[in-house]
């Protein structure tokens, strides 16, 4: 008995230390990755890169034989358009599904739905891209009389389908976290089910639902292979959702493999990496501030 207790006393600090190490390692990894990406890109960033041209020109000619130009405006527009469209589809769908699963389902149906949605999340992104390339392309051409089916719409739908499981899972957890006493109280006061959800549940779960949506946005900005295959990979600013585009991530994926290490092109691709880092950082920061703002009220 005494022995066991001593063992327990001893294992406590060890386990605590291990867990602490796990926590710190996440920070170390992020700093390490940022350091590496920054080191690879910084030489060109500070010496040769014309930052104004980089951010405001659409001319992406990294391997032109006569005049190399590195403008990423069209690529940023590509990332933004696909992400915004995907969120316009995925957020209402995902949150709707989360509300349905957490509030309207029978226990049995809920378990089935959750398993199916987990399966949706387990589909590899390259498979999604393949679906975009082979299934959605002809459908979009037929339905919209579009000249080509690989475009913002295709990428947006594929990306929406990929983010929905995340939004549903986290959204449902957020709704679950609202104590049942809230539901009981509002129903007891004579509210209908819809009034209870709209007036009580949603405001109470606001933070979690916002986090769900923002994680979806993060997925959208970071997703690579699926959008590479579904958006058509064309450098241009889209004028409608039926235009093909190219995203920042897809450009890195398609071009990094062949660029000689430390060449200008290679370094510019890493600068795009820094740009992506900064965009996600700003998104996360805004999310944090918004959540804090809500909490402060």
């Amino acid at each position: 008995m005494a022995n066991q207790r001593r063992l327990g006393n001893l294992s406590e600090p060890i386990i605590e230390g291990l867990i602490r190490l796990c926590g710190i390692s996440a920070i170390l990894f992020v700093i390490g990755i940022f350091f590496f990406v920054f080191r690879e890109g910084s030489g060109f960033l500070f010496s040769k890169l014309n930052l104004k041209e980089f951010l405001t020109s659409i001319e992406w000619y990294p391997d032109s034989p006569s005049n190399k130009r590195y403008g990423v405006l069209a690529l940023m527009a590509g990332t933004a358009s696909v992400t915004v469209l995907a969120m316009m589809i995925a957020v209402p769908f995902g949150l709707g599904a989360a509300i349905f699963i957490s509030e309207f389902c029978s226990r049995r149906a809920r378990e089935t739905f959750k398993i199916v949605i987990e399966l949706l999340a387990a589909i590899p992104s390259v498979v999604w891209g393949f679906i975009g390339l082979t299934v959605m392309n002809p459908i979009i051409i037929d339905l919209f009389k579009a000249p080509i089916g690989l475009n913002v719409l295709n990428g947006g739908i594929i990306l929406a389908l990929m983010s929905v499981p995340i939004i549903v899972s986290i959204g449902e957890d957020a709704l679950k976290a609202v104590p049942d006493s809230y539901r009981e109280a509002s129903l007891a006061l004579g509210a209908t089910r819809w009034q209870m959800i709209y007036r009580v549940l949603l405001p109470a779960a606001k933070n979690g639902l916002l986090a769900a949506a923002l994680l979806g946005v993060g997925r959208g900005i970071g997703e690579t292979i699926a959008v590479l295959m579904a958006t058509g990979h064309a450098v241009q600013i889209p004028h409608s959702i039926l235009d093909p585009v190219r995203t920042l991530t897809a450009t890195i994926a398609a071009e990094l493999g062949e660029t000689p290490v430390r060449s200008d092109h290679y370094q510019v691709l890493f600068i795009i990496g820094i740009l992506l880092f900064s965009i996600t950082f700003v998104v996360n920061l805004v999310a944090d501030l918004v959540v804090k703002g809500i909490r402060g009220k």
Partner: protein
Amino acid sequence: MKNIKFTLRVSALMAVGAFLLQMGCAKKSEDGGTPAEKVSIQNQGSDTMVNLAQAWAEAYSSVDSAVSVEVSGGGSGTGVAALINGTVDIANSSRKLEEGERAKAQQNTGKEPKEYMVGYDALAIFVHKDNPLNEITLEQLAAIYSADGNVTKWSQLGVQNAGCANDEIIRISRQNNSGTYHYFREAILGKGHDFRLGSVDMNGSKDVVDLVSKTPCAIGYSGMGYATHDVKVLHVAKKAGDPYVAPSIESTLDHTYPIARPLFMYTLGEPTGHVQHYLDWIHSDAGQQIVKESGYVPLPKDGSLEHATPANE
């Protein structure tokens, strides 16, 4: 939280499954060959040549069962990069090694890259099979694809493309580490010219053909070995007034098809042993027969095509 745990468990299971599967495969191939000294030749590069390289590798396993040739694609640029880094035995390329790359490889590895011409490929131009267009000149192609070209509508080429509602030409191109992309730029747009932005850049020759077969507004290019019955292969003339020629083995060998190019394999330094035997076999009748069967053009016996040059020079 439970959901996340479940996802983790599923992905962990999948990862373990994939790992076991790989182990199983690796073991099988080890057991399958003759014991101990099975040698592997690393072969990487051109996407145009990947089918051919695989056909060679497969056939060679019955010639010399002690050697396994491991083929991977990725584009000529990938093969050349691997050559420069010294990580392949043979690099495939559908374009010639540039001077700078040659120097870099020598500087990095201390060995001079050695070039072997292993066959020819005619660059085929594809459109959707419902497209009424049958013929095209290199000048028209340049006007469609080049940054200073001005052809964006099918009607400008004099055809009524009924399947394409708004008449727009959708240009299908390749990603910029593709040897086919480099060859097209040099041979059709001309030296120093750029592609017009906004083309749809695919990652492989097969993807180009697949996409053209599903897109009535599209035009695309790739090696003629990738042609299928679902797309229409255009007849090509150098300029208006010249005869239009379909890509074929004959028209490549007698120079009448204007956009044909040699295919290369590169080694670092003089090849020895198994690599030497493999390259010799590729140049033998048996190896060249496979070139023909894979849809490419075998080397002529008299060496008459030694210097195929880009059309616009």
